[in-house]
């Protein structure tokens, strides 16, 4: 097991390097403009050249790349072109809202998706099964931001149960915090719940056709026990592996939802930076989410190997 973990950990090194190279290359295309973003229009050519020197833009590309990767691993994500603050200090206050919504969203989608999938698998091809399938198609077809509009309009404008906009920190009390993230979390959990429902259902239907299930039934076990104790254990394995992907998906999925609900999270930081062409912020967020994705992915693979001893690569 340890050898397996070590091998998988080493295998991420080239991917991380490539991801860094790709995002560096992308920003390299923009680097010419970076000077244009900061400098006054009246600046002379000499001033522009001095700024390029100061930003290290005149060094060879490989030197710039090495310096950037080095800084990244020391935790230095660069400086905003516009506000001149370090990107890390701009990011840290925005972590809490995004993670709060993603966390509640994950919990809600597991609580909604998995039972729906189990319900559908209880009687395959029944009316209930079709209803769940229909919900899941609707769930991943509905645009999150449209759903967010509808939710806002219904529950904040027409029936003022939830605050219309903004975020209340957990340090100001758990209840106001929950109130401010409930609507966004419900909205982002719909599409993920739809995926969970479908995966659970497919997994269950597949597992229920296996021989050991027939044995369990032949022993005279109650259908409930067969489903939940015997089948679900094996059917949940593919669901666990996607959980990682989906959690990362939720974190990035909050981007657009944060804009609708005007929540000051990472997504809002990203969108503002994209519109202002504040490249260091865009670059840092892009690189960070890719790193999170790679390691969450690795973690789920390791969990997968733990959960299913048959799997060893």
């Amino acid at each position, binding site marked *: 097991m340890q050898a397996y973990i070590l091998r998988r950990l080493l295998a991420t090194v*080239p*991917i991380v390097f*490539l*991801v860094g*190279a*790709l*995002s560096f290359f*992308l*920003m390299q*295309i*923009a680097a010419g403009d970076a000077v244009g973003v900061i400098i006054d229009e009246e600046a002379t050519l000499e001033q522009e050249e001095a700024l390029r020197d100061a930003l290290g833009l005149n060094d060879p590309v490989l030197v710039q790349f090495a310096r950037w990767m080095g800084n990244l691993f020391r935790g230095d994500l660069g400086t905003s072109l516009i506000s001149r603050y370090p990107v890390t200090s701009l990011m840290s206050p925005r972590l809490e809202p995004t993670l709060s919504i993603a966390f509640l969203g994950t919990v809600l989608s597991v609580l909604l998706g998995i039972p729906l999938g189990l319900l559908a698998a209880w009687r395959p091809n029944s009316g209930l099964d079709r209803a769940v399938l229909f919900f899941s*198609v*609707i769930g*991943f*077809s*509905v*645009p999150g*931001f*449209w759903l967010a*509009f*509808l939710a*806002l*309009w219904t529950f904040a*404008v027409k029936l003022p149960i939830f605050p219309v906009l903004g975020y209340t920190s957990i340090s100001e009390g758990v209840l106001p915090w929950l109130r401010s993230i409930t609507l966004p979390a419900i909205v982002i959990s719909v599409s993920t719940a739809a995926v969970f429902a*479908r995966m659970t259902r*497919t997994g269950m*239907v*597949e597992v229920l056709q296996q021989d050991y299930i027939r044995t369990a039934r032949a022993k005279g076990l109650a259908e409930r026990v067969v489903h939940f104790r015997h089948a679900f254990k094996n059917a949940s394995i593919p669901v666990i592996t996607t959980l990682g992907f989906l959690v*990362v*998906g939720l974190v*990035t*999925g909050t*981007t*657009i939802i944060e*804009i*609708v609900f005007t929540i000051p999270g990472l997504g809002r930081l*990203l*969108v503002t*930076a*994209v*519109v202002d*062409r504040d*490249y260091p912020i*865009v*670059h840092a*967020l*892009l690189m960070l*989410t*890719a790193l999170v*994705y*790679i390691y969450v992915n690795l973690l789920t693979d390791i969990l997968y190997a733990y959960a299913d001893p048959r799997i060893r690569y």
Partner: protein
Amino acid sequence: MLSGLIFLVLVSSASVLAPLIARTDPTRTNTLERLQAPSARHFFGTDNLGMDVFDRTLYGGRVSLFVGITVAVSVAVIGVVIGLVAGYYRRLDDLVMRLADAMMAFPTLMLALAMIAVLGGSVQNVIIVIISVDTPRMVRLVRGQVLSLREQQFVEAARAVGASVPRILFVHIAPNTFGVVMVAATLYFAGAVMTEAALSYLGAGVAPYTPTWGNIMSGGQRYLQAAVWVSFFPGLFLFLTVLAINLVGDGLRDALDPRLRRGL
């Protein structure tokens, strides 16, 4: 599936015929008729500049469907070509797959936003960006198919009678990937329509006053309390279009992949 197909035909013909159906210029403001509720005169009401939301939604469909179709076709073509070649030549395979893995580590919307920050927003750039994001996924899919197909006897037979590598790839192997590619292409079609709307909504897509579903919704956001219809109708069209494409995709999958018919 049939209802999905019917809806798609309706939306696309309404968009193509938008200049004939629309009774107003979708880019001309009319301050006398600001924020009017839906009525016989304005089916979907008017926005804050007095523009007819129904007409703008029809025109918006043109951009969305154009982006969707262009992306789906390009991703299918590029993905199949690269996937075939990568799946066939082992050396190339390693390189292409590592690159695809790295590209796929970036979340779709994040990468699209970052690329738009660099390239700038326009219909053309939105298409380029979505193609670049989706292609690695298609390559991976096709390559997986090729890996198992190339070991089969009909490929060996083709090789035995002296068929050239391009002939084996494009005449013998490619047709067998058709089903999987079609199903994936419909998914990317739906995804591209959604991503275009999301980018435009975020102000990182098509130029602000061009009527697209995302732009109209973004414009209507500030008037949510007074005029919910401005955002509601284009969003409804977006939702129904994506739903229709996904239903068609499901139908295609059932029809083309008998192995999945039982499971899903």
